[in-house]
């Protein structure tokens, strides 16, 4: 049963050309890939593209994954590299609109989420990169601290600390925004 299979077993089957194993690996890790991409590019649509490209690249290079049990950490490193490449490409292309105000924000989800999304992205932009990754993997993807520690090569204690500081900073930013909106209200 693929759901109960370890990453190592799924990677071995995917290496042997089993398309079902590829799909289970995608189902298991695509959201985490998206979370890490989002923490770098800070644009949901671009993060989706980066995560997809990173997965395609990871499958192409699957034979280079020396520790299949640590597939998640290996994949997230590819995602991170792809995300930085995308950022660099964007920088070379020239300045674009702030992602928090970009038209792509309304590309998916209900319209009322556009404003919330913009506020969350602005709040995330205030955090250090590692805190963004930890808080997104924990609160968006639902990973546990041991999983985060293993994938990001941190101690569990550091993972807890990053989460604590990230949440505190986000609440402070979002709370301040809410208070500002209250004063603007009717």
């Amino acid at each position, binding site marked *: 049963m693929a759901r109960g299979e370890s990453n190592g077993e799924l990677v071995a089957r*995917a*290496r042997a*050309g089993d*398309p079902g194993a*590829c*799909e289970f*690996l*995608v*189902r298991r890790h*695509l*959201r985490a890939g*998206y979370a890490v991409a*989002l923490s770098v590019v800070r644009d*949901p649509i671009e993060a*989706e593209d980066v*995560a*997809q490209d990173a*997965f*395609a*690249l*990871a*499958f*192409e290079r*699957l034979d280079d994954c020396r520790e299949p049990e640590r597939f998640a950490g290996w994949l997230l490193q590819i995602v991170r590299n792809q995300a930085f490449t995308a950022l660099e490409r964007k920088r070379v292309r020239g300045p674009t609109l702030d992602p928090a105000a970009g038209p792509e924000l309304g590309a*998916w*989800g209900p319209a009322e*989420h556009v404003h*919330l*999304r913009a506020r*969350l*992205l602005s709040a995330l932009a205030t955090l250090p990169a590692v805190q963004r990754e930890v*808080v*997104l993997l*924990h*609160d*968006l993807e639902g990973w546990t601290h041991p999983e985060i520690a293993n994938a990001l090569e941190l101690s569990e204690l550091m993972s807890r600390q990053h989460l604590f500081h990230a*949440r505190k900073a*986000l*609440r402070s930013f979002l709370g301040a925004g809410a208070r500002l909106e209250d004063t603007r209200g009717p």
Partner: protein
Amino acid sequence: MDPDRIDFSPLDPSRDRAAWERMVRAVAARGSAARRRPSPVLAQVVAWWRPTIALAAMAALLAWAPALLHAPRPAERSVSETGADPVVSTTWWALEGKAPAAAEFVPTMGAEDAPR
């Protein structure tokens, strides 16, 4: 449920189940296709096999050409060189009305085999 959790659901692409499912399937299909692609070394061999065969054929032709050009043509060979039967040679000379040269006549008639 963690009460301190930040609600990132507006940033969650899997909220739209149908779109997310399409994306998962598309990524899995790309991944499977990437796995089916031949290894880089094999891909290079496949990509270069036609030019390689063409170059090998050209090299073989160039090596063979001098031998082809310098080989004597059958028409230039004399009757004696062909080692023909004396009866056939004599008949041929008679029909052609041609007098054989001594260098052709002697070996054809077997003078070379005569005891010395």
